[in-house]
Each structure stands twice: as structure tokens, then as C-alpha cells.
């Protein structure tokens, strides 16, 4: 800890103590419990955000930095001492339900969220609560796969959060008081927010859920001060038909009936208005080119494709847009006219990669629900390579039937929303996988007006064994470097550190560290609920901490809990 930080912290604590002694309270919104002033230490500048990749004190971005590498540079906790990692503190939230939050840490203060949009500020060193905000949820929420929230984004003196009732809220980071909120879209039509926003250059960027409800997906940019809408990029353009692609990104035939689709197009017209295309996770930002990279989810309805002829652009795609205007730059579609919900959800990562001729270029990585890691050129979104499959590919792409057709990956994918991490020193991308075969059932279903619209059903097969993997992929060759099997399908996320470790949790409560070069198990801790949230790391008081939520997962029905767990070395 720097002396300046210590001095400021002392002053702030003195102020806070004085206020408490003399009964002074700051202004709060109705929802806030308590409050402590930390002065300017909580102000997050653009410069801090731009340099987050090298900042081992803080964890400012959902995925570590604008490139979304989830590579924490600190190395105090490393392969040589991780066996001495002990629980430092535990914080229990009010809500016992899925925890998918990435803890955000700003100069010793941690911000976490829970299902149903509670936000807590904690002392990152002790786990003690500073304030607690409860969003006043509207009566109408329409969401898929749990009432989750994946965290806040700190910017300036505010925190920004998306809500289940499809709002963007701005909170005072010091007190948790609500400063403003705007309605992003109509929850009655199927819109909701579970992702953390991304803030950059005075803008708050956010996508939307709703691909299971017939929404028209988007990414929107709001003014960080006023909440005014600056631009919207619709993820389903008015001409969504595309090029009638018959093969997926790996070259496998998708068995499309192009003739029937063209006939349907003539009869039904372009389906873009209810075509889905949610954006579930944070976007990567290339600060040099001013480009926003994100991936777009499945078309609506998930399984019944006859009603939505064409490639269904830009569903199941990597898309790049201009940061200032939201104008389209490029895209790459992994699966045209998807009828399996094997879409694109896990957040993209920007890093330097080798192109096909071995030249180093700016690249984009994405872990697809298909179970492959895709490697793209950043300048035109084109595909350089795809990895070896991380999960078995069985019967892909069998078409869904009325009685159900078995396929692996199942609809939860080979990689779900779980963010990947990379170690740029090893050229490895780390993904967590699901081996969960399903049967795919199709049924003709017209648009039901904002209700769940799958056009059939996905069914888990209880008699078949399920498991998970943690997989390290060399993104310059596409080869799998190592793979560790786990007892249950994996969901939640992973963190790589400068200490040569990767951390990730499991549905059975194990939270584990592996040697990032070899996959060797180095450390483990058993939590009381599923550890299905992305871990983070930070340094306060001279100690590096690893922090993760243990709240289980509703999507895979892993045991629910309400704990935030922080670990540091036992000295």
C-alpha cells in the first residue's frame, strides 16, 4: 500500500468515525443502509480504467480490463505458495439465490451485486458492509435462466447497474444513493438486464437479454452523467437474411432447407422485429481504434426456425461497432439460422494472436457454446482459426424433431455465459465447459407476445452422465494444452493471475486453483454452496486477495447460497 493511500485512508476513516460519533448522516435514498465517505479514493477515472490491465490493487472491470482478459497481473499469490491460501473473510448477502457477480474493487472498497439487484459496498479488507442498495423492482420482470445480476461498473463517482425490470440505474458510489435511472426497454415484451454495463469515454454501454422472448436485441450507449440515450445498435438489422450460409464456422453442414426458407421469406417477410439477438455479456473495447466488440445471442424462437427464414443476422455472431456512433464495422456469424440455441454469449477477449501466416495481429477470442474457441482478426472480424473441440461433438447438427433428437453439446452449450481468461505470456485461453447432452424438440409456435418463445423444448437426459472441463487452449495453434475434468458441468467463469494460477469454482462448492501452465491442481476450498461466479483479485493493505461468490446457480440447479468469500495467504 502506498503512503499516500494510507494517509488518505486514515483521513477518511477519521472523517467517517467523527460523523458516526456525532450522529451525522449523509443523504440517503430510501433503499440504503448506512454509509461511509471515502472521499476521492472512490473516484474511478478514465485513466484508471484504461490502465486496469496493469493495476494489481484494483479490479475495476467485470472482466479485468477493456480487453476482457481476466488476467490479474499481481503475483503475491503464486504457484509456490498458494497452498497457504486461507479464507480471510466471508460476507453473507440478504438474498439466497444464484450469485453471478464479479466483485469490483476500488481502492479498498468492494462492490457486489446479488440476484434481484441488490448492491453492497464492502470494506475489501474486512468484508464489513458499508452500504446496501435494494433496487425497487417493478411488478413486471421477464427473464431467462434466473434473476441474476453480474455486477456493477464503477465510473467517476458512480456505479452503474442493469436491472431485471430493464432499467439502467446510476448510484452514488460513496453512499449507494440512487442518482438516476432510465428505462432501457419494455420488460413486458421480454427485455431484462443481467449483465454489468461497460463505461468508457462518458458512455455507458449495455446490451439486453430476451432472446427467449422474441425481442429485438440491441446494444445501447447512454450518457454517463444524464442517462440520455446516445446511440442504439440493433442486433437484428432490417435485412437479416444474409447469404444463406449452409455451413457453420467449423465447416459443418447445418442441414438447412434453404428452398423452404426462401418460400417462407416470400410469405412472411423479414423476421427482424422479433428475431431475438440478445447481448448477454460485456463488450471488449479497443481503445486504439475506438471499436466495441460483442457477441450476439440466439434468434427467437430458439428451436423453430421455419418462422424466421434467412441467416438471422446478427444472431450468433461476433459484431464490431464504432464506439462514438454505434455504426456497424464488421461481423462474423458462427451459426446461421441456429435452431439449437448454441449461440454466442461468453464475452470476447482482445489480445495479440498469430494469423494464418504466423504474423502477430490484433485478435479477438470467443468461447462458443459449440465448445470451440474461435480466433478472429480484430480489423475485419474474419475467422483465423477455431480450436480443437473442448467437449464431445455428438450428432451435431441433427435437426430438432417433435419427439426429441439427442445432441451434444446441449442447449447450455460447451461454454455458457461464463467468461474465459487468458494468460498472454503462455498464449493460453482458459474456458470452463459443460458436457450435458440434451434432446431438442421442435414445435410450430407463433409469436406469443412477450411470453417464453422457444418453439419447442430442450430436455436434459437424466440417465446420462454429465460433467465439466477446465480447458486451456493455445489460441495461436488451436490446440488444447491441458484439460481437467470436473464432476459437474461448469458455469461461472475463471480468472488467470500473474502468479501462474487460474481460479474457478464448481457447482458442488469446490473453489480451486490450478497451475495455469500445466493444469495441476494446486489448492482447493469447499464452500457451502455452488461457486458459480467469476472470481476476481485485488490488493489492499499489502495483501493480495482472491474473491468469489458462492451462491450456486439456478440454471443448473446448483445449491444456492449467499456468501462472498475472500482469501489471502496465511503468513
Amino acid at each position, binding site marked *: 500500500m502506498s503512503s499516500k493511500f494510507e494517509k488518505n485512508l486514515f483521513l477518511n476513516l477519521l472523517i467517517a468515525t467523527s460523523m458516526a460519533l456525532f450522529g451525522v*448522516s449523509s443523504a440517503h435514498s430510501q433503499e440504503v443502509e448506512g454509509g461511509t465517505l471515502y472521499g476521492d479514493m472512490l473516484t474511478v477515472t478514465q485513466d484508471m480504467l484504461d490502465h486496469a490491465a496493469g493495476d494489481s490493487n484494483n479490479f475495476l472491470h467485470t472482466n479485468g480490463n477493456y480487453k476482457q482478459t481476466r488476467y490479474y497481473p499481481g503475483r503475491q499469490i503464486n504457484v509456490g505458495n498458494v497452498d497457504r491460501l486461507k479464507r480471510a473473510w466471508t460476507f453473507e448477502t440478504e438474498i439466497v439465490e444464484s450469485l453471478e457477480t464479479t466483485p469490483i474493487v476500488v481502492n479498498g472498497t468492494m462492490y457486489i451485486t446479488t440476484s*434481484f439487484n441488490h448492491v453492497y459496498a464492502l470494506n475489501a479488507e474486512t468484508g464489513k458492509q458499508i452500504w446496501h442498495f*435494494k433496487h425497487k423492482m417493478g411488478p413486471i420482470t421477464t427473464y431467462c435462466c434466473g434473476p441474476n445480476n453480474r455486477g456493477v461498473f464503477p465510473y467517476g463517482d458512480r456505479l452503474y447497474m442493469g436491472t431485471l425490470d430493464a432499467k439502467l440505474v446510476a448510484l452514488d458510489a460513496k453512499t449507494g444513493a440512487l442518482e438516476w435511472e432510465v428505462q432501457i426497454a419494455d420488460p413486458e415484451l421480454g427485455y431484462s438486464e443481467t449483465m454489468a454495463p461497460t463505461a468508457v469515454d462518458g458512455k455507458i454501454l449495455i446490451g439486453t437479454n430476451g432472446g427467449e422472448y422474441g425481442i429485438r436485441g440491441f446494444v445501447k450507449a447512454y450518457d454517463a452523467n444524464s442517462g440520455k440515450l446516445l446511440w442504439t445498435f440493433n442486433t437484428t438489422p432490417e435485412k437479416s437474411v444474409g447469404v444463406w450460409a449452409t455451413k457453420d464456422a467449423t465447416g459443418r453442414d447445418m442441414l438447412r432447407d434453404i428452398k423452404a426458407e426462401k418460400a417462407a421469406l416470400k410469405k412472411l417477410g423479414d423476421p427482424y422485429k422479433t428475431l431475438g439477438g440478445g447481448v448477454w455479456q460485456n463488450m471488449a473495447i479497443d481503445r486504439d481504434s475506438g471499436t466495441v466488440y460483442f457477441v450476439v445471442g440466439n434468434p427467437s424462437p430458439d428451436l423453430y426456425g421455419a418462422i424466421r427464414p434467412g441467416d438471422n443476422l446478427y444472431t450468433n455472431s461476433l459484431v464490431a461497432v464504432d464506439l462514438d456512433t454505434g455504426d456497424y464495422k464488421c461481423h462474423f456469424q458462427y451459426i446461421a439460422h441456429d435452431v439449437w440455441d448454441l449461440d454466442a454469449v461468453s464475452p470476447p477477449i482482445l489480445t495479440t494472436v498469430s494469423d494464418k501466416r504466423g504474423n502477430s495481429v490484433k485478435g479477438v477470442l470467443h468461447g462458443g457454446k459449440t465448445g470451440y474457441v474461435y480466433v478472429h482478426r480484430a480489423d475485419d472480424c474474419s475467422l483465423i482459426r477455431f480450436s480443437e473441440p473442448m467437449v464431445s461433438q455428438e450428432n451435431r447438427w441433427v435437426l430438432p424433431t417433435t419427439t426429441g433428437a439427442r445432441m451434444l453439446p446441449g442447449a447450455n452449450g460447451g461454454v455458457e455465459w461464463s467468461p474465459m481468461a487468458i494468460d498472454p505470456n503462455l498464449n493460453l485461453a482458459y474456458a470452463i465447459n459443460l458436457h450435458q447432452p440434451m434432446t431438442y424438440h421442435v414445435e410450430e409456435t407463433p409469436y406469443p407476445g412477450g411470453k417464453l418463445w422457444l418453439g419447442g*423444448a430442450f430436455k*436434459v437426459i437424466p440417465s446420462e452422465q454429465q460433467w465439466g472441463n477446465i480447458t486451456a487452449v493455445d489460441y495461436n495453434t488451436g490446440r488444447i494444452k491441458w484439460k481437467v475434468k470436473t464432476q459437474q458441468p461448469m458455469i461461472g467463469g475463471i480468472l488467470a493471475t500473474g502468479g501462474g494460477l487460474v481460479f474457478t469454482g464448481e457447482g458442488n462448492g469446490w473453489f480451486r486453483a490450478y497451475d495455469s501452465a500445466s493444469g495441476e491442481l494446486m489448492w482447493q476450498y469447499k464452500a457451502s454452496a455452488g461457486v458459480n461466479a467469476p472470481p476476481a483479485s485485488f490488493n489492499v493493505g499489502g495483501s493480495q486477495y482472491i474473491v468469489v461468490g458462492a451462491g450456486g446457480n*439456478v440454471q443448473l*440447479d446448483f445449491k444456492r447460497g449467499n456468501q462472498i468469500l475472500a482469501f489471502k495467504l496465511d503468513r
Partner: protein
Amino acid sequence: MCNLISSAEIKYSPSSSTGRSIGIERNPRRPTFLGRRDFFEAIDTVAEPIEVNAGQNRCRLHARLSMPSKYLNFFLFLCCSSYLGPVIALADDANCDEFAPVAGILKSCEVCHGEGGASTQQQYPILAGQEFYYLYVQLKDFKSGLRADPIMGPLSSALDKESMQLIAKYFSAQEWRDTEYMNQEQATQTAKSVITAGQCVACHLGAFHGNSRVPRLAGQHPEYLAKTMLDFKSKARQNSPAKGSLLASFADQELVDVAEYLSSL
């Protein structure tokens, strides 16, 4: 607004002079779920909606309706003709003025669904404590015919949007009453397998208490649940197509077992 809060206990957490935390404890064996409990705050966008004492302001329709069954059809006719509403005694709790416009309708609902919607008859679902938005959508669907029902269709045909929201609001704010239903172990095993296969928890949540658009299933009458699922399967009920697709893939007896299990939660 009417301080309609069922018997849930409202607690004020010690906090700052201006900040205030609100917590509602329901069944202590169950985790806290949000949504229904806060709906009236949001729907009215009232800045200070929680100014009540625990359990003291439960809104009840005090005018009991006693009616021989042979007059029921005539009663229903009057209801759906909007004639009866004005002549039914309004709730006598001053705090319930909010529901005065639908007091007569609510009384007609209670004929089948029981006082406050806490149905004791197997074929009629418990409405008390059900999710507000789910109830509102069902009324809309009854009216539009999307959910066909020979009783509820005519009854809802004369309702406007505001009335439907008030009715849904009234019942959702009542306390869910446990039926203490016990089921067979064998049914439980089958039910759990079906629930796993159907990933039912992903929408209805872990305790099957639902949220907003998704109904509570835990503790509902088994006969009603079984009929509902079988109606989805047979397409007799069509107002949730995804449900129909999923349930069509299970055997009838499996769905009956699921109903038994859910009722026992």
C-alpha cells in the same frame, strides 16, 4: 394507497436517519424472494409506500357472500354483465378504498377461490399470494380467449386493464396459506427426474415460488396442477406455448407425480 400487505412482517432495520431498509419475513424456512412483495410500490410509483404496521392492515372483503349453488350461475351471469358489482357491499376497511372499484368482482372470485383467494377446493387454484403479473396475464388471456375457460372467460370479458390489475394486485398481496399436502415417496422420485429433465427450476426458481411472470407452484392444489399440466400437454390450454411443448414430452402419470410433489412443497 391501500396498505395491503398480507400477514408478512415488515421490519425496519436500524439505519441512518433518512435511509431505511425494508425487509419482509415470510416463512422462515424458505429463502427470501422478491418481486411480489414489492409490486405495489412499483406499480403505483409511490415514494413512501411502506408506512404500515405488521399484519394490522390486511385488506379483507368483509361482506360475506352466502349463496345456494343453484343461484351461482345467475350470480356469475350478473358478474359478467357488470350488473352485480355495484350492489355488492364494498370492503369496509377504509384502507381498502383502492380496491373499491373491483370489490364486487373480488367477491365473485371468492365464491370459487375462497376468502382472499385461499382456495380450499382442489379444482380451483390458490390465488392468495400468487404472483401479481402472472395473475394479471391470466386475466388478460381469459378475456382474449388465449386461455379458454367456460367460467373465467365470461367472467373476465367485461374487465378492463385497470380492473384486472387491481384484482391481481389484491390476490397477490394476500398471504399464501400452506395446505400441508403430503405426497408419496415414489411420486417424488419421478417428479424430481422430470423436473431435472425439464429444467423447471430455471424459470420457477429453486423453491418453486415463481417470480413476476412465472407462477408459484409450491403448495398449489395437486388436482389443479395436474389438470393444468395435462391441459398444456393436450393443448387445451395454449397461453404458454413453451410450456405446452415441454410437457408434451412427458407421460401423463409423470405429470401427475410432479403435481403431487409440487403440492407438498
